[in-house]
């Protein structure tokens, strides 16, 4: 490219303007707003005066009475995120590799089926699971065959793993498709060279496929971590945010937009904003930390 600007610079900037404006006003500014709100006691009550209360929200979350509930939500968030990310990435990578094998007929059909939840969306998926796991539903009857029964989404122990399952069910397809795209970009010659050497499939995968796929894996892991740390729609739609399944992002929504008029925390958007900032801090640490780790691993390869 020649050093000079070729097109009319003003036009280029004009083209970028709407996007930049919209992005700033409706993404960046609100984000900063959340940060600011976390230092206030703003509520959803219309017309109520609000003021800056400094670190009181944070103090309440960490030290005061419902701090224990907050910490439980934080713990759940980590478990949720780590389980989802690891299981989902492993599963989608595995399926991607399998469904790229030439000998498998109807590959596209299988891929489409696994990708279907992404197309269906949260609402449809949630209702589908509510039906499937309802108290007289097929899942219950299946368990009954083995002499067991469960409360599923209302069950104290099993609601949480169930919700993790639902989350993975919903997003594995998307991740798999990205892996497939990445796999198809690996040139054939590399495989031919290794076959001559007589290595089996497992070695092929580890020594050639995975390193070539590493950038894709990194992107997917990041997306997955961030997504699972902030995702709560499926939890909201299946359990409504019971304490057993209350991850931090679910908690934020409950506090910010209120569920139940007698809940003392309902509508306290300042408190919700503080929770969100804490959540964000963890997302930041985890994302940056994992990137650093992954880069290190990649570098050593």
């Amino acid at each position: 490219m020649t050093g000079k600007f070729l097109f009319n610079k003003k036009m280029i900037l004009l083209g970028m303007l709407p996007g930049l404006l919209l992005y700033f006003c409706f993404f960046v500014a609100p984000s900063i707003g959340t940060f600011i709100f976390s230092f206030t006691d703003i509520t959803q009550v219309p017309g109520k005066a609000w003021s800056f209360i400094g670190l009181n929200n944070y103090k309440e979350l960490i030290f005061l009475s419902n701090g224990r509930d907050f910490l439980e939500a934080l713990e759940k968030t980590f478990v949720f995120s780590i389980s989802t990310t690891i299981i989902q990435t492993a599963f989608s990578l595995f399926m991607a590799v399998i469904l790229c094998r030439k000998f498998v007929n109807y590959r596209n059909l299988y891929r489409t089926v696994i990708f279907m939840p992404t197309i269906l969306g949260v609402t449809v998926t949630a209702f589908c699971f509510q039906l499937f796991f309802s108290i007289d539903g097929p899942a219950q009857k299946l368990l009954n065959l083995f002499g067991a029964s469960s409360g599923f989404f209302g069950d104290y122990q099993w609601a949480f793993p169930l919700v993790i399952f639902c989350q993975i069910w919903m997003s594995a397809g998307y991740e798999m498709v990205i892996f497939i795209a990445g796999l198809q970009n690996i040139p054939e010659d590399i495989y031919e060279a290794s076959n001559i050497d007589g290595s089996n499939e497992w070695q092929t995968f580890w020594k050639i496929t995975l390193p070539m796929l590493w950038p894709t894996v990194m992107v997917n892991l990041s997306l997955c971590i961030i997504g699972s740390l902030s995702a709560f729609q499926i939890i909201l739609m299946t359990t409504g945010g019971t304490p057993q399944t209350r991850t931090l992002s679910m908690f934020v929504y409950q506090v910010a937009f209120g569920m139940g008029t007698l809940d003392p925390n309902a509508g306290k958007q300042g408190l919700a904003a503080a929770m969100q900032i804490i959540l964000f801090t963890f997302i930041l640490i985890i994302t940056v930390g994992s990137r650093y780790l992954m880069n290190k691993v990649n570098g050593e390869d």
Partner: protein
Amino acid sequence: MRGTSIKRILAAAIAMSLVVTVAGCGKTGEKATASTAGESTAATSAEAAAKPSALRIITWSNQSSVDAINELSKKYMEKYPNVKVDMSVVDTDNYPTLQRTRLQANDVDIVTMGGGFVGEKVDWAPGAVPEWQQLIDSGVFTELTNQPWVANWSTGAKAGTYKGKVYAISTGANATTGIFYNKKLFDEQGLKLPETWAEFEQLCAELKARNITPMTCGGQDQWPYQMIVNDVMAGLDIDYTTYAKGLWTGEKKFNDADGLKVFERMEFINNNMEKNFMSIPYSAVISRFVSGKAAMLPDGAWQAGEITKANKDFQFGYFPMPGTNKGVNFQGKFDLFFAVNDKSENKDNALNLLAMLSDKESYTAFVNKVGFIPTMDGVNITNEFLASLLPYTSNLKNSWELEYRIPVGVGQYAQNKGFNPQFLKSAGGSIKTIQELADLTQKDFEKAAAANKSK
């Protein structure tokens, strides 16, 4: 203080932008010049020739209330043809959100509310200011004290009074501490309605012996189950104010003799519920009851309409949950409050609707449709179910949940109505004994109450 000056600058900026916006839009600020209470004749008066206006009502999805309000709206629109009544209905879980967002956007004229002005902030329970109080103090609701029709109401206006002024009208009271029972099944089995707790225990044991599940409940939604705590408290002869205050002052505890009694009875209820009842959604509970999966259903009286809807021929009754001694009456709450958004541009329309409702004839039709206990004297009850309740509803008291003052920021064990037996193992939770849960509850409460007091 630096915080205040930042706040002032922000407030000024927002105020300026608001002024600009309001000045820019010409629409707001015109009041609908509808007539005063009950006097306009549609065809001739100048007001009727006024431009079309709206009357926006929001309510939650209880079928009988929705039907009753719809009929009232129809009558209203006949009388005021230039007003279009627009009602938004959402399910109970999302109603608080709808309420808040519509009020905040000034996009509503009449707000209906489920609970009244109870739980007012008192000096022995610092820090807990209920939302309705915040709303009134911010001037969101119109004061109705001097409206000519307020005197028509006996208990309805009183229930909506705060600091001596009326801000909302309760159009019906609801019994919440009762149990629906399957009449046919009881007759077939030759069972009698229990009048004391001991008899109730016997009844459940009998049912179990005959392989009939005693009770069911919509546990997954949490609140239908937690409501049963009210039932148990009603039967224990405890003075609510003393207890609620005592919790704060330390004289009463969740793990003292009375508190443990509550947990004990709730544990009994847990053990006599359907299996995995905490995963039954509230929306499934009526069909389960009606199809005979359980003999009884502890729930609020408002379900009567829904039960009939599910099965017209199903025979059922409703009796108060028994207590230690005989003669426990229903307790409940005043319900279906109508309040007016003071900032709305259709305020007069809203007041006219309330005036119309305050007329005894309209109200009689209304309350019989809704099936709530009337809050106006001398109303003729034609609703069969309602009539069956009347013997037990003399002097309807507020149930426990309306007296309990929740400390701000309290942990989950002492939330809701204070007693949360869903954490017990018998309900599918993780806590094995009543004592353990009671101690945890007390700890949570003490921690929060102390924090509240020191603010």
